[in-house]
């Protein structure tokens, strides 16, 4: 999957905006939005929020988790624990990138947040690399990865799944008679 497609999924998350225009309720196929009144917060999906922000029609409010103190706590916990801690949001990386690129003026301490999220990401990816390594070397058949976000999974997806499938083919070709009549897919 492309990182762009993961971002596409992340854009469905709901975020609060403060519009500077008024519009009555919109009935989208995917749900109802609005009504929009200037100065009153309203909840919209990120794809719409970014589009309105680019047209200078709204102000985006940072999500609850996008706060320096909260992210510092998450970073400390992540560094302490060996296993994965619950992420600030299932799409924390994509939302940080999108919101900080397009709406950094609406988010207090944007640079610090960027650094904190990058630290959290680096720690988690390092852990992911270690656990993928031990998964392959111990030839496990199953892994539970509850607290991983889609972006992290997607980063290792092609390499990890490709190598696991390759190893499986090598192993099954070594054992006589396991794949009778099946032509291996090179």
């Amino acid at each position: 999957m492309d990182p762009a497609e993961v971002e596409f999924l992340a854009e469905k998350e709901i975020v609060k905006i403060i519009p500077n225009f008024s519009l009555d309720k919109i009935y989208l196929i995917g749900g109802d939005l609005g009504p929009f009144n200037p100065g009153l917060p309203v909840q919209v999906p990120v794809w719409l929020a970014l589009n309105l922000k680019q047209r200078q029609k709204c102000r985006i409010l940072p999500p609850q988790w996008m706060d320096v103190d909260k992210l510092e706590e998450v970073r400390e916990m992540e560094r302490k624990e060996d296993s994965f801690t619950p992420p600030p949001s299932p799409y924390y990386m994509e939302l940080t990138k999108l919101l900080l690129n397009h709406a950094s003026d609406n988010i207090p301490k944007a640079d610090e947040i960027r650094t904190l999220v990058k630290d959290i990401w680096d720690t988690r990816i390092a852990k992911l690399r270690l656990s993928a390594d031990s998964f392959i070397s111990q030839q496990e058949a199953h892994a539970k990865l509850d607290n991983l976000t889609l972006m992290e999974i997607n980063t290792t997806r092609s390499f990890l799944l490709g190598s696991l499938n390759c190893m499986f083919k090598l192993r099954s070709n070594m054992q006589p008679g396991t794949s009778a009549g099946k032509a291996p897919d090179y």
Partner: protein
Amino acid sequence: MSDALSEDGSEQNDSQEDVMTPVELIAKLEEAWLNEKFSPDLLENKSEVVECVMEQLNHMEDNLQRVSKGDMKASVHRMEIDRIRFVLSSYLRSRLQKIEKFFPHVLEKEKSRADGDPSYLSPEEYAFAREYLANTETYLKAIALRHMPPNLQAVDMMKAVPEPCLDSFVFLRVKERQDNIMVEPETDDQREYVVDLDVGSQHLMRYRTIAPLVSTGAVQLI
């Protein structure tokens, strides 16, 4: 103008037996899209979902034609239509890629299924698969086979084209709790063991074990 857009957007699609709200429909389309993208095998054909989504999109497009351009609402609706159209095209494209990759096996599976089972191919996909098979055979014959000695001129497509590898590993998220899913060992010294799948948990395992769960919708490939 706002009436034209609002009344049709909130209308329920009740031309099918099980009434689905548009929200549920779009969620189902996205689930089908992700499942099709990540599964090594061609999944069941979700033609009712595809047709309903096409209806909704065409409906919305028609309404937008009637409304004046440059309107705020129209642009929001148009953005949403583009997003849904992307998911739909990507879904259909994944299916076509798999059909092209595994065409003899797909046709064989379709031929050998019982009458009551849901079909794997829509009528258009079936026609596409058959044409692809015919074209490939004609091509191979014209390019190489007719120059071979007479007893070597046949090609068994089922053997020539690799089968989908159902033992590939996939990532999945659990939607309905499952108990006692067998995990087969990788090496000879390991024993097989069972795992329970809790709702909301994410796992990495072989596709073969959980393939039936994907068809019933108990797990979602991610």
